[in-house]
């Protein structure tokens, strides 16, 4: 055994990795998202207090355009910045990717592909005709990725650059820098309450529907966690905690991916047809999407509709509401779900192998990137206390917070494109009809209950977040 991350040893046997303890700080991507995200915030602040800014390197393609010459002139005038930005991303992602055990010879060409396509996605997605078709860049990125991976195909080694979770976790840490900590404190309890109601109800519906149909309790719990807590991450956390059968996790993975992708399109479009306020739609997406990456794609899409006729609220409200609901309201509780279900599994279910549940599970399985998100929020909120509101908007936002937000936008597009590129429908496990019915019953309840709570019971919170 070694601490290396190589998949196979000289004999062709898969390796093992012990990543708990201090090794977690460099062997888990959650921690790398923290180092990278807070590192960017620190550098942005250092530049700012020295009278400069990182906005030169955080460049984004031009916003909504109709005349293509605007695009060509932009790139002609700023190509050096894009090259510098690509080098920046390559270096900082490359260090972490190598530490996580991946080959740089695979990562760099794959990331170059991601970066160039992301530019194209941004440019196309900001064309006014495309915007009028409701194809915001997140949806465009997902669609393009799905077409490439399912109709064209790419070499499997390129998956090294399609690190969905790493990009979204880094983006979430950077998002923390743009979310006032006071908002988290104000809206957090409401988010936790609403999310808990939906999560517990959804888990119950899935679990009891599944067990009534004769599905193994461990699979039922894995499905429940996937649909109620945190998508694929929730499913694999609970699968490991309860000692599920080897084939249980892939079933949950398939169902989460399929429904998550459906919801990326359905939730924003239905919300738009009902002209939901931006924050309200974000909250609904936060209860009724299954995975952070998919939910951010949907919430980002809806933010693009802000200001359109009949849609109240500001761009950014959907992402903020989604973050509060999903990250604060659901993600942080994964460890507790795992601990509780491990107790149930070892005391009430037949297990072939197991271990006495340890409360330390709550920490070990905690999604550590949330720490980075909260720290980023606290840091920027503290910085803001040194400025009046007008000064903060006039100087800190354009010179420090704005560029951080732009880099976050890049991380998000890398993520959304990678979701499509890694979703190969023909490779997903066959879920089977009974698990599909059980999971879908939870989806229906989840969507309806989340809608009622977001648009009626707690609507005033989510509509007034900006204030």
């Amino acid at each position: 055994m070694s601490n290396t991350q190589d998949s196979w040893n000289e004999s062709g046997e898969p390796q093992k990795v012990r990543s708990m303890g201090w090794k977690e700080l460099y062997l888990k991507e959650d921690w790398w998202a923290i180092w990278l995200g807070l590192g960017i915030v620190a550098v942005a602040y250092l530049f700012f207090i020295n009278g400069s800014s990182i906005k030169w390197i955080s460049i984004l393609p031009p916003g909504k355009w109709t005349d293509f010459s605007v695009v060509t002139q932009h790139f002609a005038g700023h190509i050096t910045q894009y090259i510098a930005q690509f080098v920046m991303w390559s270096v900082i992602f490359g260090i972490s990717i190598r530490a996580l055990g991946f080959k740089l010879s695979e990562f760099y060409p794959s990331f170059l592909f991601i970066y160039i396509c992301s530019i194209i996605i941004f440019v196309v997605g900001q064309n006014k005709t495309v915007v009028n078709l409701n194809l915001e860049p997140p949806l465009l990125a997902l669609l393009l990725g799905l077409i490439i991976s399912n109709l064209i195909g790419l070499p499997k080694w390129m998956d090294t650059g399609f690190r969905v979770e790493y990009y979204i976790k880094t983006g979430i840490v950077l998002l923390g820098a743009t979310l006032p900590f006071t908002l988290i404190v104000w809206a957090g309890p409401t988010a936790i309450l609403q999310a808990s109601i939906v999560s517990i109800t959804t888990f119950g519906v899935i679990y009891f529907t599944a067990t009534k149909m004769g599905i193994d309790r461990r699979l039922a719990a894995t499905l429940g966690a996937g649909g109620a807590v945190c998508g694929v991450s929730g499913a694999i956390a609970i699968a490991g905690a309860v000692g599920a059968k080897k084939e249980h996790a892939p079933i949950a993975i398939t169902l989460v991916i399929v429904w998550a992708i459906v919801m990326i399109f359905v939730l924003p479009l239905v919300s738009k047809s009902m002209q939901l306020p931006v924050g309200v739609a974000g909250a609904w997406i936060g209860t009724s999407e299954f995975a952070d990456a998919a939910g951010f794609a949907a919430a980002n899409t809806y933010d693009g509709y802000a200001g359109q006729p009949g849609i109240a609220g500001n761009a950014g409200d959907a992402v903020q509401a989604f973050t509060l609901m999903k990250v604060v309201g659901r993600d942080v509780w994964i460890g507790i779900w795992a601990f509780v279900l491990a107790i149930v599994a070892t005391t009430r279910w037949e297990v072939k192998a197991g271990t006495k549940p340890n409360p330390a599970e709550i920490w070990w399985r905690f999604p550590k990137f949330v720490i980075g998100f909260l720290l980023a929020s606290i840091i920027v909120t503290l910085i803001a206390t040194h400025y009046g509101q007008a000064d903060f908007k006039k100087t800190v936002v354009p010179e420090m917070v704005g560029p951080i937000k732009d880099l976050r936008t890049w991380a998000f597009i890398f993520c959304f494109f990678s979701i499509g590129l890694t979703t190969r429908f023909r490779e997903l496990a066959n879920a089977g009809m009974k698990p599909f019915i059980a999971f879908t019953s939870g989806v229906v309840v989840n969507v309806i209950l989340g809608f009622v709570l977001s648009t009626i019971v707690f609507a005033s919170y989510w509509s007034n977040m900006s204030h």
Partner: protein
Amino acid sequence: MLKSSEAQCCFTCVHFHNSPKYMESVYPGLNTLSSGNASVRKDDGICDLHELYLSADASCEQYTGDTS
């Protein structure tokens, strides 16, 4: 069920495999909306003997030490 310790637990058993890349190769879709390197996964892995996905700290009576 044996009391688990680092000496005799799944992690040190010849039947257990858990590297992140191995997990992503065995579970298609894991890297789509999660990751083999995620904190939530801890060190969970697959037992080839019992065909289970479980904690590296688990143990059973069929333990066979990995000497590699």
